[in-house]
């Protein structure tokens, strides 16, 4: 623990920052407030992804042809103006970049925060406002990332898709792959748990975005928490309906 009193800088006659000039975005990202901007912006990008991912997957209720056709459509986004899969790859790379940014900012802010209180309170805290969601952001985030790795290995690369089943993974047969995967109850359960944690993460994160970006206005402040909870609820209900539908047999081959 550092116990020295912060040193006094010369008191100038005007408010002048003493930081070294850096390129604009690096300069912003070097501060805690700037990193929160990065968290918020990358969060918005990934919120867009989870929403459209959920909406796209509801095609499975319309049958195999619809879902497999939707996957084909994604590959042909903006085709023939853009080459096949080019737009999809741009989206994939951007999202991975956003995820990396989100994780790096979260990591460095966590390190900063740990340094800011090296000696913890020796008695129990009695939190007044901090919620389960806000207190568990790191845990829920880590579980969601672990789930994403599994999810990609399962339904994108097919590596773990056939474990415990006697089917054959064919990349373009999205519908069959989903049904085969969720027919294994531990996979369905993991999917449900991970999505509930994603919902918890979103319920705090989607509200937090407004504060971090300085979007504060009496005209919409009352709606900020409702928006975050509503968004989280829609994504979670949509997502967990898929494994449940397969488990109870609404969706089957």
């Amino acid at each position, binding site marked *: 623990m550092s116990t020295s009193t*912060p040193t006094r800088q010369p008191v100038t006659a005007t*408010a002048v920052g003493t930081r070294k000039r850096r390129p604009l975005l690096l300069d912003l990202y070097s501060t805690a407030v700037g990193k929160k901007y990065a968290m918020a912006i990358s969060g918005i990008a990934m919120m867009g992804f989870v929403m459209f991912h959920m909406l796209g997957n509801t095609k499975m209720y319309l049958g195999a042809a619809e879902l497999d056709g939707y996957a084909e459509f994604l590959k042909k986004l903006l085709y023939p103006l853009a080459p096949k899969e080019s737009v999809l790859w741009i989206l994939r790379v951007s999202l991975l970049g956003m995820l990396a940014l989100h994780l790096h900012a979260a990591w460095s802010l966590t390190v900063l925060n740990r340094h*800011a*209180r*090296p000696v913890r309170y020796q008695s129990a805290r009695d939190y*007044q406002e*901090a919620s389960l969601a*806000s207190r568990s952001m790191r845990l829920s985030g880590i579980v969601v990332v672990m789930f994403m790795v599994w999810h990609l290995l399962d339904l994108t690369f097919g590596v773990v898709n056939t474990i415990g089943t006697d089917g054959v993974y064919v990349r373009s047969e999205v519908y069959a792959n989903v049904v085969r995967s969720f027919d294994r109850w531990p996979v369905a359960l993991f999917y449900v748990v991970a999505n509930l944690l994603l919902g918890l993460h979103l319920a705090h994160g989607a509200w*937090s975005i407004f504060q971090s970006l300085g*979007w504060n206005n009496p005209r919409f402040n009352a709606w900020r928490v409702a928006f975050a909870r509503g968004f989280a609820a829609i994504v979670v209900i949509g997502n967990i309906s898929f494994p449940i539908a397969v488990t109870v047999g609404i969706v089957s081959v």
Partner: protein
Amino acid sequence: MTHLVSNLTLKVWRQNGPADKGKFETHVIESITDEASFLEMLDVLNERLIGENKEAIVFDHDCREGICGTCSLMINGQAHGPQRGSTTCQLHMRSFKDDDTIVIEPWRANAFPIIKDLMVDRAAFDRIVESGGFITSPTGGAPDANLIPVPKPVADAAMDAAACIGCGACVAACPNSAANLFVGAKLTHLNLLPQGQAERYKRAEAMVDTMDEHFGSCTNHGECSAACPKEISLDVIALMNKDYRSAKFKNRKQLSRK
């Protein structure tokens, strides 16, 4: 009617200087009037300790009417204790019941080193204010009232932010030891008023950069606002974030910089 609160068990943090490890010390208050303030209860305990030739418990206090921002105790896991919108000195023993156990700790943050027992050094707040929490102008006589028009809601919002007494409860209550509510309040107070406009963005940049050297970062738990004796709203943090962004993206010539 005065009532007595009896058989209180106090677990008080004792730490003999910054380098000491420190530990909790238990004292029993057999009975005390519920009209006593929390600090008066500690005074009574200290009188007893002095009478027993023991060292008195060191704690910060000054005005004892909730405006100086000196008292600073973590009481049962809450900054300034269980009563909302008040400082430790405004807390009275009527907030406690017979046989209660009361745990008292100092603020804990890297930027607030413990001087002794329950007293911490909050000079880091002074460093932040020195970096921009003022208006640079030749002063002279006070101008006439209403010479500079300020819309009423703006004046109210600035005044609400100006209520900050710099006690440090926001930092103490924050799970991340962030000072965003304090800095946000100081910025909002000046940045909303016409007098603060000339240095608005310089101020935002300088104060946020100084904050960064000492404190953690905001994760929007809202604990700071709940602990704040002046109940300053999280809105001030949003304004700080917005002004900091503006400071970075504004045409620098308009900020009289290159």
